[in-house]
């Protein structure tokens, strides 16, 4: 991994949880299994994907 996978997992998990809570709080989606468990899993996937691709930052050292 060229990026930061641990940061991606933790922040992706929390982003999924906060995202589910935000959608629920603003009346867009209740706390279903999809939102409460699915969103954090998707968040972890995105975080890991970002860590793997590492699209940001300088490519030269």
């Amino acid at each position, binding site marked *: 991994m*060229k*990026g*930061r*996978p641990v*940061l*991606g997992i933790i*922040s*992706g998990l*929390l*982003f999924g949880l*906060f*995202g589910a*809570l*935000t*959608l*629920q*709080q*603003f*009346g*867009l*989606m*209740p*706390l*279903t*299994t*999809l*939102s*409460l*468990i699915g*969103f954090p899993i*998707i*968040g972890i996937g*995105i*975080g*890991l994907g*970002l*860590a793997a*691709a*590492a*699209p*940001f*930052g*300088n*490519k030269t*050292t």
Partner: protein
Amino acid sequence: MRPSRTTKLAIVLGVLVSVLILPATALAGIEGGCTGSVVIDGNTYGPNNDTVGDPIVVPIDKEGVVALWEAKVPFDNENNQGELGVVVGPFTIQIASWGDPNTANSQGNSGSYSIEDFKNEFPVPESLIPRGVYQLSGEHTAAGGECTGLVMVKLEGTGAVGIASVVGAGVTFITMLGAGLRRKS
């Protein structure tokens, strides 16, 4: 030509938005032949209020609101029992239950419930009561049959929990983008 950082960021945002904004699906309403309704703040609601787009709205910021409810079952209602719960992910948290020998076999009931009493159930100030939409699941069984149902309830208004969740989502999103920063080697 390699995509710019802005293009990469736009792709990441596009994926996130398309994943998070999912269409709401209709639920099952009430099955088993039971009927019921509730009047809140002049609006009448029933079993069809089972979607995010058409929920039972509870104006929690208003003072003195009373919910007037009535319910009927189409079967022998002796030895009845039931429960009501809030769906939270894969779990259902029970918030009410009832049971009655009902030897008179009454098949209907009605009453009123003060929203102020509901707010007093929370051990926090009113601004900290979580708003938003909740899926309520309930069942009622008796000697002659049973009913199950799902409705959607919306506690209207924006509270501190909603604001905190937006801040949390924003901070964790930016942190998550940090995972895509290339490490120096």
